[in-house]
């Protein structure tokens, strides 16, 4: 609690004690009003003072003023206990609200902790501590173990582990070494690093994240706008109703003045729309905060609302559902063993720098003894002929086999096929293809259980490989061989097919898909802070490249919207009901206090469920399967 809050807390305790004494002590009835005025003054003097100031400013619908009128009115009609208690509870509610809001603000501030305070700049062999803004691209910085990496860059020297949890929500540290790119905001855990800076601080990952989160609260969702509009009319309406209630029925001879004035005072107590005005934005704020903790950056409450209605999810293929890295996915030997086949292929490709050679060598995984290769010839567009351990080896595509008059056969696996022949005899083939991400299958399944009606994959790749991936993952629709413009066209078609209430989300890795990201109802860019255009165009940015974050984001958005709706309905129903009962004389001041303060407190507690620590949503996993 802050100092201000502690002071208020003390006042509440004193006032409550005085109130209890005033209630239980046998005080002569002519002094009772003073006994109750004492706790009232202790708890309410600032409200009274504020209401004087606001009435001088012409603010008739100020909540302090209305609360003062209500309580003073209650004193006038002899309801001393009620008058003091209403003021007391009002302050309890205010204190709670300020405490809760402070707590939520802190959760965002915690995210702000990724902001680095300083950088160790290496200049002329000396190390100076400077502010991160002072470091320029090309400069070299030193990051000691336990320090935050202050700027984006490439590691020149050093091996370490980086804790990326503040950025990605991924708790497993990532091994990093020379040549790797590192993001600012990660924590260097074990080794000393020398890093060459690639971007100025203003464009660094940290600066971008902070900017994004700080501005998120400004984009208001329709639910928030509804509340704003509602609040604009609610207080004046209730106050006018209170005045009418106090004056009209008694003038019409329908009962005693005191009775109707009491009913009017009940109205004044409920006249603040606070419960709604605070709890709805707080729910969105908590939802956005909860998402950031998982490495999902949402640019505004409005996107959570749209995301919660997701009906169609469209994926880019390469780099999104697949790794975008080519790997040997099948080894089919004829005559020889798998290992032999791979060994011959790796040796023959040993001198080549082609990406395919690289993936074969990676699959082989052992040191290559290139002295075993005595002759070597690369035939462009076909493959390689080499002599290894005295055997004639041909490694290449079908054309090479044709050329060498070797009988070969094609494979049914999708991907690039590399055929191998030993001494003019066919020895089998390897299939190289893009790998599906480990979490992709589960992502699609989770989306289905979330009630997403249609999953679609768009790819620039060949029909065969597109179909293969889609089939493996259980994706409903594939559109292959698309140029970037074609992807936009497909999204347009899909947008026209979905229902009016549902929305379409697009997930891409941000390379070449900025137009699609902005065309979709919700554009989600993954891979953290890769491309600036993508972050600009996207509505939601995933800090890592795990597609699993999409169902998680949808779940968070739905939970947020559920809480928003609960709060709206709950507050409206309770307030409406108490107003109604108050008007017909069935509700007392006590119910009115509940409708005002009680509803606020409950709605705030409900909103805070979202950001509570350990809020793992149903069906959520703590960690990715990697």
């Amino acid at each position, binding site marked *: 609690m802050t100092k201000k809050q502690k002071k208020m807390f003390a006042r509440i305790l004193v006032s409550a004690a005085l109130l209890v004494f005033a209630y239980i002590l046998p005080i002569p009835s002519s002094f009772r009003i003073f006994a109750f005025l004492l706790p009232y003054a202790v708890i309410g003097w600032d409200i009274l003072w504020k209401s004087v100031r606001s009435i001088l*400013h012409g603010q008739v619908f100020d909540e302090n003023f209305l609360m003062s009128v209500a309580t003073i009115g209650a004193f006038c009609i002899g309801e001393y206990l009620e008058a003091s208690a209403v003021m007391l509870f009002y302050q309890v509610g205010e204190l709670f609200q300020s405490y809760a809001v402070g707590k939520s603000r802190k959760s965002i501030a915690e995210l702000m902790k990724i902001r680095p305070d300083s950088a160790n700049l290496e200049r002329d062999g000396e190390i100076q501590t400077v502010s991160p803004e002072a470091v320029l691209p090309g400069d070299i910085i030193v990051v000691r173990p336990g320090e935050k990496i202050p700027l984006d860059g490439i590691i020149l020297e050093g091996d370490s582990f980086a804790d990326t949890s503040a950025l990605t929500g991924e708790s497993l540290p990532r091994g990093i070494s020379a040549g790797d790119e590192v993001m600012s905001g990660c924590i260097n855990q074990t080794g000393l690093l020398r890093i060459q800076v690639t971007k100025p601080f203003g464009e660094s990952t940290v600066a971008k994240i902070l900017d994004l989160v700080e501005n998120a*609260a*400004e984009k*208001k969702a329709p639910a928030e706008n509804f509340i704003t509009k509602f*609040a604009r009319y609610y207080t004046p309406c209730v106050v006018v109703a209170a005045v009418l209630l106090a004056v009209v029925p008694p003038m019409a001879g329908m009962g005693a003045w005191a009775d109707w004035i009491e009913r009017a005072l009940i109205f004044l107590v409920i006249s603040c729309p*606070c419960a709604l005005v605070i709890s709805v934005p707080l729910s969105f704020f908590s939802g956005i905060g909860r998402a950031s903790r998982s490495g999902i950056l949402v640019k505004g409450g409005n996107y959570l609302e749209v995301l919660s209605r997701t009906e169609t999810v469209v994926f880019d293929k390469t780099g999104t559902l697949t790794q975008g890295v080519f790997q040997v996915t099948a080894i089919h030997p004829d005559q020889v063993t798998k290992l032999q086949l791979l060994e011959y292929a790796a040796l023959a490709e040993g001198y080549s720098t082609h990406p395919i050679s690289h993936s074969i060598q990676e699959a082989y995984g052992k040191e290559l003894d290139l002295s075993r290769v005595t002759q070597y010839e690369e035939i462009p567009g076909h493959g390689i002929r080499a002599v290894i351990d005295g055997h004639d080896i041909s490694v290449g595509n079908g054309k090479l086999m044709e050329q060498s008059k070797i009988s070969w056969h094609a494979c049914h696996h999708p991907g690039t096929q590399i055929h191998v022949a030993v001494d003019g005899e066919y020895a089998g083939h390897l299939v190289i293809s893009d790998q599906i991400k480990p979490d992709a299958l589960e992502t699609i399944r989770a989306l289905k259980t979330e009630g997403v009606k249609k999953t679609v994959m768009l790819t620039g790749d060949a029909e065969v490989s597109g179909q293969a991936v889609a089939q493996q993952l259980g994706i409903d629709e594939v559109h292959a061989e698309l140029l970037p413009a074609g992807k936009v066209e497909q999204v347009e078609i899909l947008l026209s097919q979905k229902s009016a209430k549902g929305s379409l989300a697009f997930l891409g890795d941000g390379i070449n898909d900025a137009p699609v990201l902005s065309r979709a109802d919700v554009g989600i860019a993954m891979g953290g802070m890769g491309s600036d255009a993508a972050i600009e165009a996207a509505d939601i940015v995933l800090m890592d490249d795990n597609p699993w974050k999409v169902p998680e984001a949808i779940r968070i958005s739905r939970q947020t919207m559920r809480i928003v709706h609960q709060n709206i309905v709950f507050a409206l129903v309770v307030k409406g009901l108490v107003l109604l009962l108050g008007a017909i004389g069935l509700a007392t001041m006590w119910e009115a206090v509940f409708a005002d303060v009680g509803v606020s407190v409950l709605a705030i507690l409900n909103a805070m469920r979202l950001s509570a620590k350990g809020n793992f949503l149903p069906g959520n996993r703590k960690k990715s399967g990697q």
Partner: protein
Amino acid sequence: MVKTFSLTELDCANCARKMEDAIKKIDGVESASISFLTQKLTISAEEAKFDEILKQASKVCRRIEPDCKIVG
């Protein structure tokens, strides 16, 4: 021109909403938004009138919540 300011001593969500409404009505303001949770005021307005608008906005805020101040 869009500028963001911090608000101090902004204690009441409904007041923030009222201030937002009132600032929007100031002559020359294209749009304005107050986030009670981040205690931030964003005003988008013509550059030439900005100082005058800011002065008026401060006045509006004081009227609604006397302790509230706009800081840079």
